[in-house]
């Protein structure tokens, strides 16, 4: 299995101290201005897109996206349906590679490495950038096997028992399932399943967790649990979350990116600023519900 590991994993996921590359300089502004709970974190840029375009066949889904996502904070992406926010999210860990029709242009840096460089193995990239999907999608396996799946496929040399327990605790699910780890994950409720998916994603200790509308298929109580969880996760991980729910974005995120129709990133700033005093009229219209 070792040959499946990429050639240059280390480069891709280097610890990020390469300040020699000017493009990876931290975003000074964001480090100062970010309010709220994570204000103490460095705000170092971990993901940076530059003139980033995505096409599906001939249709342009994203145009000229420039964004710098800070480390260990929650960045929300909002916008109307079909505006390309999910496309952008799935471009970050190259899930769009699975769609043959997708084609990208421009650069997207994780740490200081363009993830679309030819020497980047998407499998290695996804080991550092985990993902949680819109609909809870646990495997039809036991709860334990679900969480341990990532450890097994990555051939990680760790104590499975311990990592599974820690991940489930981090995902606030341990107390509910500790006596039934052997049961099928499909027996859990929708909210529990989604937390299981989060536990599964953090078990392999990624740096970034991408969430594609993680609460949109859940009821309000389950949603609020997920939101609390995202809050906690931001202490250890960078969270990028796509959501349709603007209140949710306002509640949980430190920074917000607004995509509008045509795959255009119209505004990206501190969440507070976006919701209280956006620069663009279109963004204000969208947020106040005049459009979209």
């Amino acid at each position, binding site marked *: *299995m*070792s*040959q*499946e590991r990429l050639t240059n994993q280390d480069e891709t996921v280097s610890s990020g101290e390469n300040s020699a590359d000017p493009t990876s300089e931290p975003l000074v502004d964001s480090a100062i201005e970010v309010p709220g709970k994570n204000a103490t974190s460095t705000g170092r840029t971990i993901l940076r897109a530059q003139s980033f375009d995505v096409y599906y066949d001939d249709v342009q889904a994203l145009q000229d996206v420039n964004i710098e996502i800070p480390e260990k904070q929650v960045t929300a992406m909002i916008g109307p349906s079909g505006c390309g926010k999910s496309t952008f999210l799935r471009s970050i*860990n190259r*899930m769009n590679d*699975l769609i*043959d*029709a997708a084609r990208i242009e421009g650069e997207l840096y994780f740490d200081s490495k363009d993830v679309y460089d030819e020497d980047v193995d998407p*499998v*290695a990239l*996804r*080991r550092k950038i*985990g*993902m949680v*999907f819109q*609909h809870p*999608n*646990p*495997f*039809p396996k036991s709860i334990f096997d679900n969480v341990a*799946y*990532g450890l*097994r*496929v*990555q051939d990680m040399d760790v104590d499975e028992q311990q990592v599974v327990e820690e991940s489930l605790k981090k995902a606030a699910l341990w107390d509910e399932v500790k006596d039934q780890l*052997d049961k*099928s994950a*499909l*027996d859990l409720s929708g909210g529990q399943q989604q937390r299981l*998916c989060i536990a*599964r*994603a953090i078990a*392999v200790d990624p740096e970034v967790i991408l969430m594609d509308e993680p609460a949109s298929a859940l009821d309000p109580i389950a949603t609020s649990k997920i939101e609390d969880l995202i809050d906690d996760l931001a202490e250890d991980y960078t969270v990028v979350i796509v959501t349709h729910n603007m209140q949710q974005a306002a509640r949980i995120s430190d920074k917000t990116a607004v995509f509008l129709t045509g795959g255009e990133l119209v505004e990206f700033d501190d969440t507070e600023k976006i919701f209280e005093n956006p620069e663009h009229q279109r963004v204000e219209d969208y947020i106040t519900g005049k459009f979209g």
Partner: protein
Amino acid sequence: MAAETPSWAQQAGQVSRLRGRAFEAICLASTSLALVSVMVLLLFVANDAFRPFEAEPALTFAIPVLPGLELFVVPVVLPAYLLVFGATLGLPVALTALYYYRRDDPAGEVAYATLGLPIVSLLVSAGVLVMFIEVLTVSELFATELALLVAVGAIYGHARLRPRKAVERLAIIIVAPVVALAGLPPAMFNDIVNGIAGLAGVGPVLTTRLFSVRELVLASPFLPVRWVMLLATVTLPVVAIFAPILARRRESREAGLALGGLSMIVAALGLVAAPALGVGSDVWIVVASVTVPPLAVYVEGVVRRREGMAGLAFPLVLIGGALAGWLLVQQVGFGMPDPWLDWGFLTNAHSRFSAEKTGIYPPLVGSVMMLFAIVILIFPVGVGAAIYLEEYAPSQGLAGKFVTLIEINIGNLAGVPSVVYGLLGLALFIRFLSMPVGAIIVGALAVGLLILPIVIISAQEAIRAVPDSHREASYGMGATRWQTIRDVVLPQAFPGILTGTILALGRAIGETAPLLMIGMPAIVRRAPDGFFATGSAMPRQIFRWSKEFDPLYRHGVLAAGVVTLLVVLLIMNGTAIILRNKFQREETA
């Protein structure tokens, strides 16, 4: 309070429902026509095969269709034994079935499975026994299994000791089975080289070779006695499959060990009990090993779930009823019918002189061997192709168009007449590759190619049914494509693949035209003793009987053959249905 019906509640005057009703009636008529014609055919054949109404004494009476008109009178013959069996077997069975249907739905399913499982197990054990009688000796199987065990042990041992050496492991995976089963170099290779050397006028070049584990075991003077080998080769593998299932379900090693021990003891009991019953101890050991573990696991599951336990009584009702009826008939002295399809029919070969003594044994064995060969040859190829087409093949651009073209053509191949595959078999395998005419393996290849597209298509459907979200989840956690296929896609698609394959095999067992084309003989007096031996198959033999001059062959024997074929088919389809239901339940649970 007779409120007047408001006008909106009436049928709207301007909309006629007549056409809808007519359409419904036509659909109903076609369904009934299809069902009735198949039923009539089956009953007709079954009547010929079993002759249930030809036994003395019998009640005879005439039912007048039109009173007063002698011409329209239907004579009815009702043998006495039928009445007895109706009372002891038919009525109780019908009543229990009705009870399950009305009161206890899960019990019906349990009844179906507890009845079906032993039947399938018995058939499998019959297959194993026939294999020992006709194809392999027990010691050969013992040596082969031991050698395989050594090879698997070597592979696992290496993986344990040197886990990161992928190239080494690949070499071991290739070399170990060869050394274990065939030796290095394989005996055939030596023969070929020496043969060429002999032609060139040189003596044998390769005189030494590393003997395979299999050969060493066979040559060993310390081979265990036959029954120990039987227990080791037949009972142990079955136990090794089912004991862990039980252990996992009950979450206790003891349960698994208990099942294993119990099965071994029951099988070994054959040494004492079988001679007393007048069967060979081999028969007992094989039947017990194949029947006891799966049945025990199933019954345990039913008892543990406490759902449908009443269904477990169904086989008892059936067997008890049959036994009681038989004893009663014997006691009173009623005559029993003389069915064409009896034990003798299943164990004899075709006889030119007596329809009564004719049997279907050699073609039955031939058919089963063909099926076995087809599964071994076609299953990996079909599933592999389906995995490639669904998981790897490009879907965009020129290559994608090409893949689409291939898929369409696989669909077309599924519709190619079987005669054409027979021609392919004749031209390719017999003429070009010089394989023996009418050999089991040639039949298996021709019919296998015929069902290959069906296997591919059904496997594709099963793989496609695995939700993409599961693939994405797997990729999202850093799994490679191969890991995703192995750990996520295949486990979920497997039941569907299995069902599709079994249904395709059902088609394979009934194919006749390719067998005619590749020159399968109509009449074989001995069962084939290997895959390269000449053999026949059931449909081929049935076709032959249809052309016999003696009407006894054309009616009785032919019908018995058809029923045998249909029963094998029915059992295969039933297995497919049980498997599908079982796995579907596990998915949704």
